[in-house]
């Protein structure tokens, strides 16, 4: 149709109609570039979202403990270094972990926990510092209260090792759990028989899995 509307001899239409790239109208020519631009932006945004998730929690400082907990941090030991915490059967301690929101959406930290392994030597008994709102880039300290227990399930040489904590958040009503990897392993070494009232010499007497 269009060629019937254009007289090829009409020079007033000039070079706009000449040449292979001029076959489309100016409107048609800008539209693909805009789509491409929009696509690129979308891809970039997607990559950015992928690289920087809406809510991302990381450890933002040393793990600390309450004043009553005997502990020591030894960065040179083990490839990852370690936090050590003395097991005192029946006592309680507080493990404090500073976390930062490295995402781009705000989040409310609603909980923090260790994994659900059977018969741990540090049994979670509560949390502190939650809930807490974390804007992007903000840091807050959350804590897990633990009770030293279950030494009868471990040998005198065993170590109960924790490499991460699970932090739950809520953003716009959506809940999510984040594994926050600790900068050093948290090691709780087992008590010996004289300080573990339930221990027996039969090493197979108590199985953690029941």
């Amino acid at each position: 149709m269009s060629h019937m509307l254009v007289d090829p001899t009409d020079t007033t239409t000039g070079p706009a109609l000449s040449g292979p790239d001029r076959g489309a109208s100016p409107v048609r020519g800008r539209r693909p570039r805009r789509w491409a631009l929009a696509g690129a932006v979308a891809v970039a945004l997607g990559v950015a979202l992928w690289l920087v998730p809406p809510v991302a929690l990381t450890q933002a400082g040393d793990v600390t403990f309450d004043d009553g907990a005997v502990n020591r941090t030894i960065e040179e030991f083990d490839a990852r270094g370690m936090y050590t915490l003395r097991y005192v059967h029946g006592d309680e301690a507080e493990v404090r972990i500073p976390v930062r929101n490295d995402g781009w959406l705000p989040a409310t930290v609603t909980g923090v926990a260790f994994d659900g392994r059977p018969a741990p030597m540090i049994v979670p008994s509560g949390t502190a510092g939650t809930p807490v709102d974390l804007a992007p880039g903000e840091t807050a300290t959350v804590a897990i209260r633990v009770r030293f227990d279950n030494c009868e399930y471990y040998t005198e040489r065993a170590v109960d090792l924790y490499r991460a904590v699970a932090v739950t958040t809520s953003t716009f009503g959506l809940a999510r759990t984040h594994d926050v990897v600790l900068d050093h392993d948290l090691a709780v070494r087992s008590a010996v028989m004289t300080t573990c009232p339930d221990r027996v010499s039969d090493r197979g007497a108590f199985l953690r899995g029941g």
Partner: protein
Amino acid sequence: MNVRSLVTVLLLVVTMVLSTLGAALAHEERESQFPDQGAPVPVHRSIDEAADVIVVCKPESAALIDAMTDPDLQAFNRDLLAVCTHEHIQAAVDAVEVQGTNIYVLPGLYREEPSVDAPCADDYEGGVVTYEQQVSCGEVVNLVTVAGDDPADEDRACGDAPLCNLQIEGTGAEPTDTMLRGGFTADGDWVKHNALKADRADGFYLRNMGFELVRENAIYVHETDGYVLDRVVARNNDLYGILTFAADHGVIRDCETYHNGDSGIYPGSPADVNADSTETGPLDRYAVEVFGCDTHHNSLGFSGTAGNSVYFHDNRVHHNGAGYVSDSFVPNHPGMPQDHAWLEDNLIYANNVNYYGNVQEGGPCRAERPADVGYEDGVVCPVFPVPVGTGIMFAGGNYNFVRNNLIYDNWRQGAMLFWVPAAIRDDFEGGNQYDTSHGNHFVDNTMGVHPDGHVQPNGIDFWWDDQGEGNCWQGNTSTASEDGSATSNSPHLSPSLTSLPDCDGGGSVFTTSNPVKSAALLPCAEYDREDNPSPTGCDWIESPSEPEGREAAPSEDAGADDGSAAPGGEGPAAAPAATDEGGLPATGGPVMLIGLVGLALMTGAVRLRRLRSGTAG
């Protein structure tokens, strides 16, 4: 892959391997202290020298004596049989009235049935056993109890008690002619924790007997000053063959230990008689001397938490998961941190047997009842993780002296030294965290050669994490390098160290552990035989590969001397003993002779290699 990448990968691999370090072993016990009586090492007494004589025999003793081939020994046994008064060893111990008594145990199998069924033990639930309980009812954990000290007095010395200076001696031609056996109850559980325990029994002498099949320790000497364990066999136990704890003035000689789930020989927390010394050795005084022993096919050949002042010489340590291990890991062990062991003239080789397959799903150790595991057939169920393929490991120790040993065919490493922070042993004092891995010397050892001259390299000869002051390596030779010098991880991993520090230069200057090489025991420390037999990140329990250039020695007998697992494969359920029951050396002489001949041959082999390679000898 370029060289840097390759090195990086190797670093990672080595780090992962080392991250599994951990373990050597300890045991559970009441609070214990070193004896301080200053008692001498007892001397073997003849029957004429005994203050009193008590004889124990079994119905089968007469027939066993009739079958003896040595007429003198037979006559001696017949004389004793004529005056036999007891059928159980514990009954004989209970009958002792004067110090210096000799109890002769005639050939036979001793099960100590009255101890197994002792009513006083009915209420025992498995916890700490006090000394008072050992005296009043040792049967709660022991088949035979020798408790010397009177608990009514305030000290821990044997004093005037009749059981001081007691001697118990088997009268067979071989130790295993007189066996004390635990075994299992009708419902398949172990009958006892210990076969024989000498507790605060100063001057105790045990000779020429075999012990087997108990939940913990076949022979146990505790808080005793002056003891000798002479020509004994301890085998097929869930934990230790021979265990001593917080004892002094001891000798363990001419023993054979095998098929024990922890270690064959364990002098734990010997008296820390050199605690204040900063000399490495040799020193004038040691708490226990171990010689002439053959320890093989155990999870560990030798171990000692706080293994202080141990003089370990002229022994064979072979075909275990790991050979000689001492550590500073466990709380409540007097004498921490470990110090001043002296290892000389030992054969430490082929400690590559991987028993960890036994504890995995489907393995024999997963049987519900101990009676069904196969302990009596040699099944070893490793209690702790060990670095399979390691000859010697000092996991946090000071002033240890390792000289003139033959260390070969250990596929992971010949000898290993690394730091253990004090917090691991429950000592959280800030100033104590770096108090281990100082002043250890490794000198004039011959690495990587079988006594007959065949090349049998270690994976590497020496491994060190760079931690500590005054550690040194000097005069060690090896077949693993072109110039005959020992190999190590240092030249490859530490830019600041081109070789291991020598002793003439004063040894190492203090640095903290190299984080790249740091012996990360934590992943392996999660090992639990029942609950976590394959902890994440622990490749310590995997078999190392056979080193390149290994030559099979003609003397190797695949059926009797090679219990090692195939590279990367699972270990045997039951590795055969290197010697049969009659193979125990009567003295340390044969072992020493093997060592001397081996050294001579090895020196020749190394010189020959140097000549061939054109290096100066």
